[in-house]
């Protein structure tokens, strides 16, 4: 099998928590392969394990058992530092609650990942500006989060996720805190990013949002219920 296009390859991963001495499986025996330029939705009701799966895919957490290869590198062998580097260079997070730093301007927020990757000031300033322009915030560059609307904040968050040109964008309920009109605009932004060749993983419990992806994985009780191609992809 050709693995050159594979970004994420996980096999039989489980995450187990101890609760009152009893082992509780958040996810159990999940195997997945995610290729370049896929637009994947992870669906499921709350408690289905989708947050746990997202945290593991995003290298924020490590599985209790099972294998995880990210672009051919074994995540289980990595230190905290290595994982931080993977998150910095390869993964762009977009959260439901935006998670911007409230006291920093849009530009500063977008620049932050580049500071941690050690880029020079002049360079990172230019890249961060261009990324903000790309997401349609040319006139909001020096605004602070509290001076921006919800949709604009999420655009800043998307710019921050994009700024290091990561291998995957991991979006956790990106429209959950937005009104439906703004939500549609954000989904359109994701669609455009996907068209440009980005790989997107969308975590959601809303069927309508999930339908924007071209592949949908449904979780239930920590197990993969269905993994199917979406033939009715919605395009905003």
């Amino acid at each position: 099998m050709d693995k050159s296009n594979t970004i994420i390859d996980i096999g039989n991963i489980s995450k187990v928590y101890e609760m009152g001495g009893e082992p509780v499986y958040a996810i159990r025996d999940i195997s997945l392969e995610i290729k370049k330029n896929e637009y994947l939705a992870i669906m499921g009701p709350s408690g289905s394990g989708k947050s746990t799966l997202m945290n593991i895919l995003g290298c924020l957490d490590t599985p209790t058992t099972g294998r995880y290869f990210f672009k051919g590198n074994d995540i289980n062998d990595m230190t905290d530092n290595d994982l931080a580097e993977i998150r910095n260079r390869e993964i762009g997070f977009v959260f439901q609650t935006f998670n911007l730093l409230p006291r920093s301007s849009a530009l500063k927020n977008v620049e932050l990942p580049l500071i941690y990757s050690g880029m020079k000031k002049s360079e990172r300033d230019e890249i961060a500006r261009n990324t903000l322009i790309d997401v349609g915030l040319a006139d909001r560059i020096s605004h602070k989060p509290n001076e921006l609307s919800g949709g604009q904040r999420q655009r800043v968050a998307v710019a921050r996720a994009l700024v290091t040109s990561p291998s995957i964008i991991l979006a956790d309920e990106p429209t959950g805190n937005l009104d439906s009109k703004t939500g549609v605009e954000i989904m359109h932004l994701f669609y455009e990013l996907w068209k440009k060749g980005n790989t997107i993983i969308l975590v959601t419990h809303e069927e309508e949002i999930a339908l924007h992806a071209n592949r949908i994985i449904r979780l239930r009780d920590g197990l993969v219920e269905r993994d199917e191609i979406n033939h009715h992809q919605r395009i905003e």
Partner: protein
Amino acid sequence: MIIAEFNESIKLAYDSIKSNKLRSFLAALGVVIGISFVILMGWVLQGLDKTMEDSINLMGQDMIYLDKWDWAGGHTNKKVDQRKDISYSQAKELSKRMTQSVMAFPQAWKWNNQIKYKNEKFSGLIVQGTTYENGLIPEGTVTDGRFFTQMDDQFGSKVVVLGSKAKETIFPNEDAIGKTIDVNGHKLLVIGVVKKQGTMMMDFVDTKVYIPLSAFLQIYNDQRRRSFTVVMKAGDQTNLDNVREEAKGLMREIRNLKPGEDEDFSLNETKNFQAFVDNLRIYVWGVGIGMTILSFIVGIIGIMNIMFVSVAERTKEIGIRKAIGAKNRSILMQFIVESAFLCFVGAMMAYIICSIFIFALATILPKFVPQTSFLSPVMPYEFLIIASVVSIFVGILAGFIPALRAAKLDPVDALRYE
């Protein structure tokens, strides 16, 4: 790469202090006080050193004063009190018999004299009976007129040389030379004024009036007990040992001390001043160090506490930073820098407060307490460096544990924190 993160940390620390001004100030108060102690202590010690240097230069480094009293307080007062006075004949005999010294001459003092000029009375001046040789040592350098001569000595001339402060007291706005003052009912002609030489321990020299010893003995011919001093100039520091040994041997003989008996006189040298200042120095250190350590402990606890609060408040932010790629050491650095910066700001405040305090104190206090005139109104800039280094060190120490806690936060838990 680390520089970019470091700059970022400094900015964050600055923002953090700016947005929590009062809280930061209260947290840094212990450090402000601690640094203030260090600065003030250093300032006093430096003043003492300066004063000692001045005193030694004033006396000359080759002077020995054989006296009943021990100037540095090296012997217990009781023992010194029981010593017999050094009589005029003993002092004179020693002065004559000294061969190793360049000069040796007897001296006597009378404290708290009443001196009159016209109808005004002046008290608190010291009359020193001495010989013409006093005019040849640094203490007797005149700026105006002349010191008395061997002739004046021999004939007991009724002449007087004024210390600079004595001159200012008696003749604030007029020339003193040629005027006649009244000392204990005797009319004395002012023939000279000695240059100003006051430093903390020696400032009484400026309130002295010098008269020939022969005149002194006439004026104060009462039989009240009086102990004389023998002033000896070694000429060279390397000759001090010889002079000391000779003087000791001769004086033991003159005072009929048995072999093995303790000396009932003291040989005071400039190094005795050193001993005096060293005692004072230990005293200042003892008090200062104790208080400094105490306030630094309080300071460290204050800073550590506020850093724990800061870490807790910013758990979510730490989670976000970790999610976008901050390494543990980046987070560790961020909080240590913040803690060090907070302490540094505290130290700068302490420096400014102390500068103002020192200026005010050194300007005002000597007007009321002349003994404090050794204090300098200018804060030495070295203290800025000391304060910076100490405060940053304290900040790192205080910030380390909270920063470690922040660095070790689990990103998933931190992101979930509200």
